[in-house]
C-alpha cells in the first residue's frame, strides 16, 4: 500500500494505517532528531511527540508534498522548540548521548564509534539550520526542493546553506583530527616522560 493510500485511510481515523506509516518513517524521524538535539532519550521523546502531532493533524495534510517531508517538518519544529528551551535554560549539547554502538566485531565497533563521534561532534558545532540541512541532504537524501519545503525558504537558499555547512563541517572535522593528533602526541610525550 502506498503512502498516499495509508494517509487517506489515516485521515479517516484508521489507526493501523497510521501505525504502518509510523513503522516506515520512525527511524528517519528518530535519526533526524538525534542529529539535531544530540541526545538519544530526548530524540526518542521528540520522535514520539512528532508522530503524535502528525496523527492529530493528519486531516490538515493535503498531500501536496510527500508524507515523509511533512513529517520531517513537524519533527524539525519540535526539535527547534526543544533547542530553544534548552538554550534558554543553558544546557549544553552532549554528543556522547547519541547511540554510537551497533557494529558486530569489536574492532569495527571501535572504529565506527570513533567515526560517529567525530561526525556527531562536528555536526553539533554547526548552527541548527545547517545541521538540519546536512542531515536532510546527506543522510535522508532529500532534494533541495524538499528541504525548502521542510525548512522553509527557497531551494537556492537550501543549497547555499548546505554548501556552507559542508565547509564548516570540513573545518570542524579537520580541527577534530588536529585535536586528536595533538592529544595523541601529548599522550606519547607523557609516556616518554614517564619512561625517562
Amino acid at each position: 500500500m502506498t503512502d498516499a493510500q495509508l494517509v487517506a485511510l489515516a485521515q479517516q481515523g484508521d489507526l493501523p494505517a497510521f501505525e504502518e506509516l509510523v513503522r516506515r518513517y520512525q527511524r528517519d524521524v528518530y535519526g533526524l532528531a538525534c542529529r539535531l538535539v544530540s541526545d538519544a532519550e530526548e530524540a526518542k521523546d521528540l520522535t514520539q511527540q512528532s508522530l503524535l502531532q502528525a496523527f492529530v493533524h493528519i486531516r490538515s495534510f493535503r498531500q501536496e508534498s510527500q508524507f515523509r517531508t511533512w513529517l520531517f517538518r513537524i519533527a524539525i519544529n519540535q526539535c527547534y522548540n526543544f533547542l530553544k528551551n534548552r538554550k534558554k535554560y543553558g544546557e549544553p549539547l552532549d554528543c556522547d548521548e547519541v547511540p554510537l554502538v551497533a557494529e558486530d566485531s569489536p574492532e569495527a565497533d571501535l572504529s565506527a564509534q570513533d567515526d560517529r563521534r567525530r561526525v556527531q561532534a562536528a555536526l553539533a558545532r554547526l548552527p541548527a539550520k545547517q545541521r538540519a540541512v546536512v542531515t536532510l541532504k546527506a543522510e535522508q537524501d532529500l532534494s533541495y526542493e524538499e528541504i525548502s519545503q521542510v525548512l522553509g525558504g527557497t531551494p537556492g537558499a537550501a543549497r547555499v546553506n548546505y554548501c556552507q555547512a559542508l565547509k564548516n563541517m570540513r573545518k570542524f572535522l579537520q580541527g577534530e583530527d588536529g585535536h586528536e593528533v595533538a592529544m595523541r602526541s601529548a599522550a606519547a610525550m607523557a609516556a616518554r616522560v614517564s619512561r625517562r
Partner: protein
Amino acid sequence: MKWQCALLQRWLPEYPDGELPALWRAWLRRHVPGCPECRAEAAALAQVVKTIKGAPLADPGPEFWRDMQRELHRQLVHSVQEAEPAEAQPPHRRRWLTRLTLVGAPALAMLAIYLGVQMSEFGPSAPATRPQEAREALAPSPRLAASPKAKAPAALRMEEASAPKTDMARRPASGGESLRLAATANGNHDQDEDADILTWELEPVLTGMNDQEKQLFLDRLEQRKKDGSCVFKLAGHWS
C-alpha cells in the same frame, strides 16, 4: 581566488552529478578539471559528505523500536479517545456548522426582535384570537399547506396580523364600513376566509347607523344566527 572560482564553488557540493542546472554543470565540467583550487575544494567537500554518509547513527535495536511503538500506540489510542466527542463530525461539517451558527444566530435574533415588535403592536388591546392567527399564519397547518388555495388565506392572515386596523371588535366602525359589512354578511360568502361575527361586540358596529340600517343589520344577523351561517368575508371589509 578568481571571481569565477568563488562563483562556481557555491555549486561544488553538487559536482559532478548532483542537482545542477545544465548551464552550471557544463561550466563546472569545463572549469574544475583545469583549476587546482576548485578541484581540491570539490574533493574536500566530497570527502566530508562521504564521512557523514559513512558514519550513520547506530540503530538502537528492535527492542527499542518495539518499546517506542508500544508507547506511541498507547498515546495514539488516548488521543483518539479524547478527540472522539469533539470530532464526531468531519471537519468540513464542523466548519459549516460554525459558519451557520455565526450567520444564523444574528438572523434568528433579528427575526425574534421583528416578531416581538410586530406582536407588541397588537398590544394588550388586541383580541385574543389575533396573535394566535398570526402564529398560525407563520407556521401553516398541514391542512392549509396541502390545499391549493392555502397561500392566499395564510397571506391574508399575515396581513391581518400585521395590519394596524385589525382591532375590528373594539374599533367603532364607520357607517360606510358597517354597510359594507352588512352587505357582505348578507350576501357573499367566501368559504376560504370566514370569521364569526357572533364574537363581535355589536355596539361599536351599530354606532353611526340610522334606525333603518340597524334594524336591517340586526334582522339579518338574527337570521344568520338561526340558520348558522353567521359569517362574513373579511377581505372585502379590509380592502
